[in-house]
Structure formats: C-alpha cells, structure tokens
C-alpha cells in the first residue's frame, strides 16, 4: 500500500498552503470545542471524586466479588494500553515501511498514544489496595533493604509502561519541534514567544536536519519493537498466571493484534470528528481511512482467528477447567459479555472487506464505536469470566460492577479527552514538515526531474 500511496496520493497544496491550513487549526476555539472540553473535564471530575472515596473507604465500593480480584479497573487499564498502540505503530512502524499515507494522521495518533498511556498509567495505582504506597513497586534504595520482585509480571509492567510512555512522549516531542518552529514564524505576540521557546531554536538548517532525520529514524527503530513488547508484557500479566482462560501461549500476539485493532478504532473515533472540526478534509483524505481500514481488517481477522484458536485449544487440551471456562464464556452467567466481544470484534471487522465501507466515513465511525466497545469487553471477558469460574467450583463467584467501577471508567475517558482536546488546540495536529517533505518544491526548470 505504501507504493500505491506514492503513486496516487501526493497532496495537492503548496508548502505555503500547508503551513497556513495547519496553523489555522490553532485559531480561536469554537463553541463546540469548548463544550467538548468542559464535558471532558466534567467526566474527569467524576472519576476524581470516585477515586477519593476509594482512597477513604477502601476498594470495597467497587464490585469485586472474589474470586474475581481484578475487574473493571484492570480491564480499563488494558483497554487504554491497547489504545496506546496504534499511535506508535502508525508513526514508527509505518515510518520504517516508508508508507507516506501515514504522515497526515500520525501526529494525531501519536498524541492519542501518549495520552492513552498516561491514562493507563493511573490504573495500576487506582486498583491496588493501598494506593499510598504504590511506589514500593519501584526499585529505590530504602532503609529496609528491600527490593521489588523482578519475577513479577507487574514489575515488568512498571518498566514496560514507563518506558513506553517516555519513548512515545519523546517521539512526539521530537516530531513536533520543526512544526512548532513553523508555527513560531507564523504567529505573533506572546504566542510567538511561547512557540519560540518550545521550538528550541529550530531553524531548519541543514545540520539540524542532518542529525534530525537520523535521530528520528533510530527513534522509530527503537519504538517499533517496543510497541510489540509492551502489549506482550501486558498480556503476560495474564498468560503467566495459572487461571484457566489466561494461561495461553497465544496471548502475546493475540493481545498485540487486539491492541492495534482497538487503537485504530480509537483513531477513527477521534480523527473523523476532528477532521471535520478543523476542516482538514483535503489533508486527511478517504484513502487514509481506506488504508487504516485495511489495517483494522487485518488485525480484526487476527483476533477472529485467536478467538477460534482459544476455543479449539480449550477443547483439544482435554483439560476440564479450560473447557469449563470457555464453555461458560459463551453460555455462562457472563454470556452477554462474551458475545459482545465476539460480535463487535470478530464479525463487525469483517465488514471492512468492502471498499465502500472503508471509504465511507460515517460507516467507519459507527464501526469504530463497535470496536471500542468490543475491545473493552474482550478484556472484561478475559479477566472477569475467567476468574469467576476457575479451579475451585465451590469458590466461584460472579461479578456485578458497581458505581465505583463506572465512575473510574468515565473519569479515565474524561482525563484522556481533556488532554487530547487541549493538545489538538495547541499544537499542529497534522505534521507540517512531513507533508511538505512529500510535496516536491517548485522548480525553475519544470519537468526536469532530478
């Protein structure tokens, strides 16, 4: 698809127009934007209040029903980590694949990544029993001479997520510098000062570009294995456990595919309205969505396969508890969650075989909503219904989420959207310099290609 993109879809505007259009998005906020931002902050406050209550009384307010010791919080944690994967995939991996169609969308997705990981990062803290000593998970020297247990997948998480957050943030910032410089040279007054500072004295001189391009390449090269590793590590939180329904070698690839799938889902959900709001239709075009759609179809189909494989292995293993767990996923007390996951992920994604749908923005938006719901439920099913019916039948218990669960979930969306909206208003949401890189500069001897 990279090739195809080369041939057909070179942006039509000139460099000057690109700068103008993008800088225009940083203008005065519309009423709609302000309302959305207010809504996001409101949601965040809901989550904040819930968290304070949890801090005060303990986790009991949430719906936890042993043996279901993890539920909505970890579900949402994995959900956000997953969202965080599309960004780096598009910005790093596709960069290495030299597929230019990414340029229009990668800035937005990368921002999404950073904020999604920021959101996810809250959950390990929210969900533990004694939130005030969460830092005990970090290897810091203390008078007790105690160190954390590096054999625990949770510690892998700590490292994987903090690394991922750092690297993707760095990646985003590095990408932003030349664009901020461009903005600096367009605006005036106090804004010029601020953007000037943020531009770190970028002038676009040849030496700067010379190192910049290499550095960016290596960052991309480092980020690529990271993307794959992070969700593998997250999947090992489960795969390393004995719990039937968790204990599977398929988990790493299965989760990575799921992560990208959900990530792109969220990209659709964010970009489609954004593109309208900021009038970027001529930069973020149908063919971008078309390609994203193909990626969704691919990952969605991998999920479909993974689901079938899980059931097959459960049956083929002949292990009683595996079989019971998977039977109950479909026909047990949590059947509704199980089927939501399968329909939204495995079936809905198959609609993307049709180009008509891939290029129909409205359809894509609807599908993306299904994807978000479906992927949240996938994690919910894997965690809750597996834990609820594991080894000891006598101890089985079924979870019913409570207001505290939903409060935190809503809050996390608020927290995420708040940052994303602020970013979209403050920084170029489309990568100016990369678009320009694609548009050949005018020549005084037209036709004579270099």
């Amino acid at each position, binding site marked *: 698809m990279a090739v195809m993109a080369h041939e057909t879809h070179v942006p039509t505007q000139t460099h000057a127009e690109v700068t103008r259009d993008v800088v225009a998005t940083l203008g005065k906020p519309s009423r709609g934007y302000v309302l959305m931002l207010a809504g996001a902050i409101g949601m965040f406050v809901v989550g904040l209040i819930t968290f304070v209550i949890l801090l005060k009384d303990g*986790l009991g307010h949430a719906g936890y029903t*042993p043996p279901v010791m*993890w539920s909505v919080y970890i579900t949402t944690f994995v959900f956000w980590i997953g969202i965080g994967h599309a960004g780096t995939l598009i910005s790093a991996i596709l960069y290495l694949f030299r597929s230019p169609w990414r340029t229009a969308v990668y800035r937005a997705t990368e921002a999404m990544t950073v904020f999604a990981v920021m959101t996810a990062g809250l959950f390990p803290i929210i969900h533990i029993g004694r939130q005030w000593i969460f830092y005990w998970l970090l290897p810091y020297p203390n008078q007790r001479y105690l160190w954390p247990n590096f054999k625990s997948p949770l510690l892998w998480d700590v490292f994987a997520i903090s690394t991922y957050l750092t690297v993707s943030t760095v990646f985003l910032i590095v990408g932003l510098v030349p664009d901020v410089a461009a903005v600096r040279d367009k605006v005036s007054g106090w804004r010029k000062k601020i953007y000037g500072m943020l531009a770190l004295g970028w002038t676009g001189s040849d030496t700067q570009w010379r190192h910049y391009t290499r550095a960016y390449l290596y960052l991309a090269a480092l980020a690529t294995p990271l993307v794959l590793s992070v969700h593998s590590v997250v999947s090992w939180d489960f795969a390393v456990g004995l719990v039937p329904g968790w204990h599977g070698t398929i988990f790493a690839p299965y989760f990575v595919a799921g992560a990208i799938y959900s990530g792109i889902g969220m990209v659709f959900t964010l970009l489609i309205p954004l593109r309208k709001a900021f009038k970027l239709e001529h930069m973020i075009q149908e063919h971008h969505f078309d390609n994203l759609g193909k990626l969704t179809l691919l990952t969605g189909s991998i999920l479909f396969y993974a689901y079938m494989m899980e059931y097959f292995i459960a049956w083929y293993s002949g292990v*009683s508890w595996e079989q019971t767990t998977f039977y109950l996923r479909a026909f047990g007390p949590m059947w509704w969650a199980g089927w939501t996951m399968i329909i939204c992920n495995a079936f809905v994604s198959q609609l993307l075989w049709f180009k008509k749908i891939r290029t129909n923005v409205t359809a894509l938006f609807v599908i993306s909503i299904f994807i978000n719901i479906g992927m949240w439920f996938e994690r919910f099913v894997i965690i809750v219904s597996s834990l609820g019916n594991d080894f000891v039948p006598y101890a089985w*218990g079924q979870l019913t989420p409570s207001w505290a669960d939903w409060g935190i979930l809503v809050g996390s969306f608020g927290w995420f959207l708040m940052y994303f909206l602020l970013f979209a208003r403050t920084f170029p949401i489309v990568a100016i310099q990369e678009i320009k890189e694609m548009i050949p500069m005018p020549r005084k001897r037209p036709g004579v290609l270099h």
Partner: protein
Amino acid sequence: MATNSSEQSNGGMNRRKFLSVVGVAGGGAAVLPGCSTDRVQKLVPYLIQDENQVPGLATTYASTCTECPAGCGLHVKTREARAIKLEGNPDHPINTGALCARGHAGLQGLYNPGRLKSPMVRNADGSLDPVSWDDALARLSQEVARAGSGTRVISGAGPGTFSDLLAAWTQALGGRLVRYQPFDHEPLRAANRRVFGIDSVPSYDFGRAKYILEFGADFLETWLSPVEHHRGFARAHGYHDGEMAKFVSLTPRMSMTGMNADEWHPITPGSEAAVALAMANVILSERSGAPSDANALRGMLARHTPEAAAQEAGLGAEAIRRVAREFASAKPSLAVAGGIGSQHRGAEMLCAAVNLLNYIAGNVGQTIDFGAPVPTGDGYGALEALTSAMRDGHVGLVIVHESNPAYTVPATVQFEAAFTRVGFKVSTASVLDETAALCDLILPNHHGLERWDDLRPRPGVRSLMQPVMEPVFDTRATGDVLLDVARAAESGPLAQFTAASFEAHLKQAWVGVAQARGSTDPEQFWVDALARGGVFEDSPAAPVVSLAADAAQIVATAPAFDGDGDLVFMAYPSPMLFDGRGANKPWLLENPDPVTKVTWRSCLELHPDTAKALDVREGEILRLTSPHGSIEAPVYVYPGLHPGVVATPLGFGHTAYGDYAQGRGVNALDLLGAAPGAGGGLGFVAYASTRVRTERTGRYQQVPKTEGNPRQLGRGIAEAMPIGLAQRGLTPKEAHYAEVGGEPHEVNTERELEALAGFAEAQEHAATKGDYVGEHPQWGMVIDLARCTGCSACVTACYAENNIPTVGEQEVLRGREMSWMRIERYFEGGEDPGEPVEARFVPMLCQHCGNAPCEPVCPVYAAYHTTDGLNGQAYNRCVGTRYCGNNCPYKVRYFNWFPYNERSFPDPLHLQLNPDVTVRARGVMEKCTFCVQRIRGAQNRAALEDRDLMDGDVTPACAQACPADAIVFGDRMDPESRVSRAGRDHRGYHVFDALHVRPAVTYLAKVRYQEEG
C-alpha cells in the same frame, strides 16, 4: 486467681489495666490497622503484679463450657488478664481436648457488645433504666420477701453446685423451680420410661459401635453431647487399617450428621417408628440371640412387616430387611433417634421403637450406657404447667435464669401473655433477650468465664468453672445474688444460707467432695481440681436393663400433622445457633451452616423437584402458612431432602437479644402449634407437626451463601473410594480407574520425565541460597476426609486464633467472607431421579505450596516462601495488587476490601483479639499461615530450653479444635513425625496434583460403603 490480679475491682472491665495490656503487649491487642504506626503512648503498670500473669505469655485456666448442656471442659487461654481463646481440656472425659464451633464462640458471649452493662429496673413509664446493684438487690429482697412461696424460678443452668443452691433457695422459700432446656429430649426419656422403666437419657458410645443407624438424631450437631459423639464416631467410622463402622441414616432431611452416612434414605416424615419396628421384627424373627424377654414382643412386632413399613416410608422393603440384617450381625451396633428435627407427635413412639430395636440387637449396655445418664431438665411439661399457672395469675414472682422461654416456646403457647400477668418478673440474663425484655428487674449474671461454679454433666464428672478475668461489665454472679438476698433477709427461711460469697459456698461444697474421696488436704485437692478442671471418675456401672411390663404396648401410628398444606414443615436445630443462644455471636452467624452453607440468615429448604413443581428458584421469597401462623423467607434448593418436606433452621428470627441477633432470618416456631389442645400436652414441643401451604411472593432475596457451585465437575477435589478398594490399598487414582475401568497411565514420555526431573533438581538447587541453605523443618498437614464430618469447629477456631474479621451479610453476598479455613461441601449424584445423593466435605485452606503460584507474581515479595516451608504473607509489605489471589488455584487468599479490622470488633469485642497475630488493615491480602505465631512461639520456647523442636510442639488452632482428629500437623522433613507417617497412607492425594504446585497439605480420600464400579 485472675480476679486478684488488680487492686481495682471497681467493677466492670478495668480500662486502665487494659491500656497497660495494650501498652505492654503491643501486638494486635487494640483494633488498629495492622500496619498502622500509631501506638499506645502510655505504659500503665499493674499496681500489684499478679504472679499468674506474665505479660507476653499466655496463662491458661481450666473451666467448663456452658454453650449447651453437654458440659465440655475448657482451657481458657488468657493474655494480660484477658481471655483470648477457648480450647478443649485434654483431660476432660467428655470432649478430651476438642471443642465445637459453639464452644469456641463462647468467647463472643463474654465480649458481646449486646451485654447489659449494669442492673436494670423497669420504671413507672415502663422503660428499663440502669440501677445500682445495691438498689437492685434491695428491690429483689423486698420482692422475694413479698412473694415468698409464690416464687417461681425458671432455670436453664445445668446440674451443679449453683443449681443445688438455687433449688435449696427456692425450696426454702416454698417456691418451685422449673429446670427448663428448650432441647430437653422429653420423648427419649418418656420412651426409656415406657420401654425400660428408666426415667433418664443414657449416654451413647459411638466409639464401640460397628454399625450405626440413625432415625433423625443429629448426634454430631446438637443431640445430647456432640463433641463426645464426634470423638466416638471418628473412632468408629474413621477408616483405619481396613475397617470402619457403617452408618445408615433414615430421615426426611439429610442433616450434617446424615451427610456423613454411607447410606441416606429419605423416608416419609412420621414413618420412622414403623421402619424401626419392622427392622426389629425382621431381626427378632430371623436372628437368635435377642434377650429372652424380647420374645414377649413377637406378637406386637409381627404386625409391623417390612412391606407395610416400606409402604409408609417410601422405601424398599428389601432395603429394610438388608439394613436390619446388617444391623443385627454387626455387634455391637447402635440405633439412635429423638433428634429435635424429627420431633413430631410420634416422637415418643419412635424413640420407644428404636429402644426395642437396640434391645433386640443386644446393644443396651453395650453402646448404650444407662449408668451415665446425661443431664436433663424437668421437661417442657413443667414449663407448660407453670405457664398456665402464670396465666391464672397464681404466680407472684418469677426469676428467669439462663433461659429464654419467651423465644424458645412457640408463639401459640402465648407464654408472653401469661408471663406479663406475673406480679414481679426478674431475669438474670446478661444480654437483653426476649424474656428479659419483659421483666421488671434484670440482674445480669457473670458470663461463665467470669464466675465460679461447677457442673455435673454425668455421674463421676465434676467439672469446675472459675473466673479467668475481671468482669467485662458491672455484672454479678447470680449465686452471689442469691446469697446476698439471703443475707439481707436476716431471719426467715433464707437465713440458712450464710456463705459469705458463692465462691466460699462452692469451696465449702468441695470440701465435701474432697472428703468423699478420702482426701486429707481439701485445700490441695481443690487446687489440683482447679488445675485439672475438676474431678473426673468413671461413671458407676450400668444397671441391668430389661423390658418394662408395658414395653409391648407400642403402636407406631403415623403421627398427626396440623393443617392441610401439601408440605410437611421441619424445624431443625441449627448446628451453629443451637436453640438460638448462638444468634448474637458473629462467629457463629458467619460460619456457614455445614449443610446449606448459608450464613447470617435462615432459608426455606426445598427439594429440587418440589421447587420445580412450585416453580420457584433459589432466592425467591416464599410464604409458608400453617394453621398457627406464617413466615416468609428466601428459598434454598437442597437435594438432601424428602420431596414432601420444607425445612428451616431454628434459632433465628430473634426480636431482641442484641443487634447481631435481632431481625435476622425467621423464627420457625411461628408455624408451630403447641398450645394445649392444638397438639400440646405432649410434654414436648413437636417441632415437625404442621403441614404448610406455600405461596409465592415474587420478591427475591439473594441467599448469602459461601458456596459457588456445589459440584466438583470431576476435578478430584474431594476424593472418595469404596471400602473394597481401600482395603486393597489402592490410591485414589487407582481406585478411580478401578471404578471407571482403564489403567492409570503416564502421559509423559521417558525423556520428558527425565527432563522434568532434571529441571526440578536444577530449580531446587538454584533456589537454595542465603537463608534457604541448610536444614529447616518443612511444615505440612494431613487431613483425613474419612474422619472429617464437616462440623466447622476448625473454622471458628481459626477465626478466634487469627483475629479474622466477620464481614457481615452484605459482604458475604459479594463473596468476601474471610474464612482462612473453609469447609467445602460438594454433592455427588442425586441429579437424575432415583440416584442417591451423596455429600462430601473437604476443608480448604492455604496449601503452602512448594511451587506456590501466588509467590512469584507478587511485585513486592509480600507473598514468599519462608525457610521452613511456609507460604508466608508479610501483611505490612503487601500493597494489595491481589495478583496472588487471582493466581491461587485453591482460592484461599482473602482481601481486606474495607477496613474490616475497624468494623468487625465493636467494643468490647476487640478484647478477644490475639495479641500474637497482626490485625490486618484494609487493602492487604491475608490467608492461612499454618498458625505461624504458634510455630514461632514453640521455636522461642525450644530455644530458651536449648532444645530442638519436637513433633507435636506445634498444633494449629484447627487441628487442636477438630473433634474428629482429622487434621495432623508437623514437620514433613522428619520421616518419623506423625504428619509424615500419616502422609504415606495409600489414600493420600494432593488437590490439583496436575498443576505441580507441590502442596504441603495432603488429603486422605474418604472411604464409603458402596458397591464398586
């Protein structure tokens, strides 16, 4: 003794001393988060050091349990002059070191928040107000003087010096004493009178029985002396070297006792007597060797053919014959009847029939000992008489002691109405129960652990009670109250009671005891007795028992049931709450009913078919209506029930008796008619005497049960094997294949096995480092399912030892109960019609795995492996990720979702906390520790004595409590330790062996009499 330990006896628990306790003991004594750093700022010394109390060391006093009439011996463990744990007295002949759940919970009676803090008197406006002891006693003396011979006393106190005093005191006044126990086994006595001419209830020796036949006597739960029965039953029915007694149960409802039976036959309620007589008939007609005078019965028995009985009971005639023959051929055998659950109007006949059965089989004098009768009261008849006397206004003064008739007799008796017509009503209840609430004067008695007394549970046994600590509240021993009144009277009938205090009175009485035993030094005799817990001698030889004249005049007619409903209503005694006196003790409320696994409330039990027929499912609230009243409660579907029966436990539905008890569940007695005329005048309460109509309410109430799924799904959690295979020395796995056919086969190839072994070795090697180098004990446990009866004594013992919080009904509904040790109850069979249903118990606790899955996943090493093979849990390191809980295959890790430590121990309940065990804060994970505090304690003692630990130095609370000795604990590294030897039994297996987590707990498969394959 403990009472002298402080100068301040300003009455009531001495707070300052308690402070000093906390200050010195530091430990979990006060209810504060386990990891809290706030500490007691003051150190308050004793004024005078008590030589019996060394801070930090436990002092044990011998005493006697008063939670039921059985009279088990106690060892009360005290720390810094606070009782912190009740244990069985190993020297005591009745319970020989074991103690049931109710016994353990006696501690919560002592520290019950509902206890009265001072005497109360009813004022003009009808309210009860606190009053000083002086005024209260003055008032009592005055009332006694006024009422004189019009005085009536209702006492639930067992036979002993206090009861003697009370009787003498009442008699001196010319009044009358009614010794009343709700479960008084009147039918049994009546039957003995009728058949043998002996007016007493014998003691039963299950230990010698080779065949046990039960017609609805829950002898492992509430019937007579449960712990003693447990000991015997485990000896007889616990599988050992190829032998065990067979146990057949014929009752409409499979009680916990029935669950331990090899055969359970759900027979029609009321048909038991017919079946028993039919069996007697079979034996008498087929077998010789019956006592000669039994021949007189032939004529009468001939009328009771197995066929007729089978007809009535809904049970095959062949089964009756077979059981009868087995029963007769096993010598000695034992048949029991007369449990509260099957106490219908024909109960007396039933007991009589069973007496004949035993007599004909020659068991009387073998397993039935009339030489050691168990204590009984005057029977319900006496109370009925008193009630009508009160109704007629002939009673001037009533003193109610240790009994609660306003709750324990059916409402239809209208005891309350009659009671209120008494001139002046006095109660000595230490908790404001239903009866006390009606009284004019309440003189709260000391708890059994705060006062002096002795009990005579049977001839030869004199069991002492002594105060183990300062009274918690401003209460007064009723014995002293009686003597005070006598002293106040100066002249008059009561003047004969001159003892300065009840303690003095008791010592005086014991001088007599000493002299009777030819002791030259009564003082020394007394001290020894106190240390031992009393004097324990063999009961006198059993009298020769023969049939009474009218023994043949027994007619087993099916008993009448009131009402025209289509279900027979069975009110059975709750194994936890007994007659209702347990209902104010959270330990008992949260300890699930062994049968239904329901906590905190009572449900209506229905057979699955009945439920289907009525189109109700678990949790739907059903209304039962009998001619005498109606109750509403959620349905619980229970396969161990006769389809024609609806059952619910007694002991719930209190209208008073403290916050824990009030308004919890329903009072089954509301459906019973026991007023004279309406089936009354029997001399006992017929608990199964009504038919009820059912009515759906369409309302639901989730049942707070601790069970998720009652089926094992073939996961081999609770293994059992037929005795035939056990005798062939098969392992559970081999037994399985022997039954289903096929061969046990190894799935791994040779090379794979080598690889596994090599890996394990390398792993072991790499894992030994630092502290882990060298020889350490490796603690382990063996649990014999052939002995475990599911009684749940271990559960309460664990709660008591380890400061486990009770979380309450709402949290149980979320499955958040904290029971480190739980008894899982699984059903086998009973799914298709006609297939017999079987129940299995398996105590589930932390298995302390060698390859514990919970350990490596903890990010902070809070869950880790100790050098002595424990699966450690450092509460203060735990951050509460709960990953360990998820990864534990046995689901034995419990999380503090809320600050239970602050919620579950309302003052003064927190005084029960064990200072040696950290009280866990919210947000941390906790679990069974194999009572590590006891291990460390033993190690400390051994170190001070410069010796190594010996086998038996450490006994966890559960093993110590177990009345069936099903639990063995010790060092697995020592091949000669009891646990190692027990673990080598061929019945041994690990739950979920396939996971290769190498548990330290080995289970021994249950053994059953059943056809193989």
